[in-house]
């Protein structure tokens, strides 16, 4: 009698424990998009996840992009951590170093048919440290040159794609073409990314030319701004802004998307703005330089927070979101980091705004490109850089001295 009772109690207890783990759960996932189409797709992932975990609902929380990292930090520091979420590339090293991101390697390796090796190695650079995987990049978006074909035609110039096909699309040509465009059409030749090259997108403005010239903003804890290649590259930009007057200067408006500039540098997600723009357009690779081709990619990844209460479940969901099929589905909005998807026909045809040949530019850049440099102290570095970079964007600035000042300011932080 006693043993039966004992057995019954253990069974009941065991059932109780199991049902506890099968109980209804809600995962909180932070994102920075409020776009309907994006949300529809994300909710689709949540629905398909229910197939394996019927009691789990995923709640997406939108935090505006401007303060995203900041507000996320407040949530983490305030004891209100989400389970998982998107993370911007410039925050990834800081967060990983601070230990607030969970190691996803076990969950990813456990997932059936996941094939982690499918992810392109350079694309994982920011998100892995040794064996540990701190995030999975969901958007690996190269920077490309958007150009206004109508303005090029008006100036009687060959468009950048044609030039690139002939191997002539380099920084010198870029400067020449910009000036000709300005003189012929009266519109600016080139606008920095989102018109923010002097404010919030300093890195996106300076880095591509510096890399094309063969330098980098920093490498191996050494500041690269005062090296000759970088100085030459920035001097060229400076001339374009103040001598040629072909780049939109600080304080001026020259929005590419409303026809104010002939070219701009941006990520392909902006292609969605083009139909409204009303002119013929295309995308081209970044101009090459002394250092050869140097595609630049911007990224965003999905992470799981160590302070969250449902880490395993969250990690499973992340694995689910980034399977081959789901990455292919997301490719229409977010360029994938998976080689299999990049190489597929489906990808080159996935974007109905960009013709397949130009999508090849994108695919090329993703597999060869280098991500933006990141550092665990990037907020401080950017803050230290900004005043010195501000000083350099004046008509009579001594470019070399300003860059030296930048290095003096950031070297201690590197």
């Amino acid at each position: 009698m006693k043993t039966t009772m004992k057995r019954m109690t253990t069974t009941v207890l065991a059932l109780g424990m199991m049902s506890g783990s099968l109980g209804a759960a809600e995962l909180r996932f932070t994102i920075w998009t409020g776009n309907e189409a994006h949300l529809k797709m994300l909710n689709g992932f949540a629905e398909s996840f229910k197939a394996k975990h019927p009691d789990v609902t995923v709640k997406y929380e939108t935090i505006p992009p401007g303060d995203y990292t900041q507000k996320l930090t407040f949530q983490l520091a305030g004891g209100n951590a989400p389970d998982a979420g998107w993370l911007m590339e410039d925050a990834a090293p800081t967060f990983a170093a601070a230990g607030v991101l969970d190691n996803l390697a076990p969950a990813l390796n456990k997932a059936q048919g996941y094939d982690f090796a499918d992810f392109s190695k350079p694309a994982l650079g920011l998100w892995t440290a040794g064996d540990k995987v701190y995030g999975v990049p969901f958007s690996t978006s190269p920077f490309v040159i958007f150009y206004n074909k109508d303005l090029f035609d008006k100036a009687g110039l060959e468009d950048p794609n044609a030039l690139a096909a002939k191997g002539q699309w380099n920084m010198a040509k870029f400067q020449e073409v910009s000036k000709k465009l300005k003189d012929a059409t009266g519109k600016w030749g080139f606008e920095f990314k989102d018109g923010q090259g002097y404010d919030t997108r300093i890195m996106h403005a300076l880095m591509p030319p510096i890399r094309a010239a063969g330098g980098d903003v920093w490498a191996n804890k050494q500041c690269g701004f005062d090296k000759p290649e970088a100085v030459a590259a920035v001097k060229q930009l400076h001339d374009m802004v103040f001598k040629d007057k072909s780049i939109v200067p600080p304080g001026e408006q020259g929005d590419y998307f409303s026809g104010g500039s002939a070219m701009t540098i941006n990520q392909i997600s902006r292609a969605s703005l083009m139909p409204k723009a009303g002119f013929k357009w295309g995308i081209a690779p970044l101009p090459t330089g002394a250092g050869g081709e140097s595609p630049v990619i911007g990224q965003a990844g999905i992470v799981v927070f160590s302070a969250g209460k449902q880490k395993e479940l969250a990690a499973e969901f992340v694995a689910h979101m980034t399977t081959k099929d789901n990455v292919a589905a997301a490719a229409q909005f977010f360029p994938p980091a998976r080689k299999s998807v990049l190489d597929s026909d489906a990808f080159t045809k996935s974007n109905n705004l960009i013709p397949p040949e130009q999508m090849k530019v994108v695919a090329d850049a993703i597999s060869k490109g280098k991500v933006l440099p990141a550092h665990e102290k990037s907020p401080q570095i950017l803050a230290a850089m900004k005043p010195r970079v501000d000083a350099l964007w004046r008509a009579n600035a001594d470019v070399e001295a300003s860059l030296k000042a930048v290095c003096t300011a950031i070297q201690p932080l590197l």
Partner: protein
Amino acid sequence: MTASLTRRRIRIINQICWTLALCIVAIPFVFPFLWMVSSGFKSAAEIFGSPSLVPREWQWQNFIDVFKHQPFARQYLNSLYIAVTVTALTLLVSSLAGYALARMRFAGAALVALFLVSALMVPEEVTIIPNFFMMRWAGLVDTHWPLILLPTFGPQGIMATFLMRQYFLALPKELEDAGKMDGLSRLGVWWSIALPMSRPALAAVAIITFLNSWNLFLEPLIFVSSLDKFTLPLALSNFTDPYGMPLWHLQLAATSLAVIPILVVYIIAQRQIIESFALSGVKG
């Protein structure tokens, strides 16, 4: 006769000049409001295009888009109910404390007053970090509790206490003494005699506290991270596109919506409002 006529003319010319001068000085005070409203009706492209006050096409759509971009109505309501709550709480707490400091004798009254005064001089930035951790420990981050508690008990609340104290001190004691003789408890005297007599001060405290809470920025910035819990000042700076660039036409339309009701109330009640501020300053 001619002498006084000329003097009158001089006075009239004088007045016109003064009025004109004042009008000119008033331009930067008024113009931003006009510009804000007019830009709210312009399309994004036109805002930078033409410097005219009158929009080429009246984009009523902007005002609808404002509500679609984020839960603006909710955020508006947040600001509203928080301000009302803070005002009610502050009125209660400060009138109680002010009355005690004014009318009751107890050991340590002077010391307490001195300590409270010291709090008036400390900026919020000084204590916000520990307050953040305290709220975290209490699980109150990303709720509205910090936005209600901190203003009520912080420097603004203490200022309110002293305002009430000043006013109570100036009230004639006879009515209160009569009440006490009639058997009213202290609380009763406070509630049925002192409070009704101090309406001007209560109005002053209410108006100042409401405005303060309505315009609070640092605390919501630090404590609130979910969109639907935002207050208006936070919401206003969030009219950005998915890439973080400001959508000026929406931002200015929303700003108009935030500012105009206050302005309307202010214009209607401007006499009382201005008197409240005067009362608080002159006595304090």
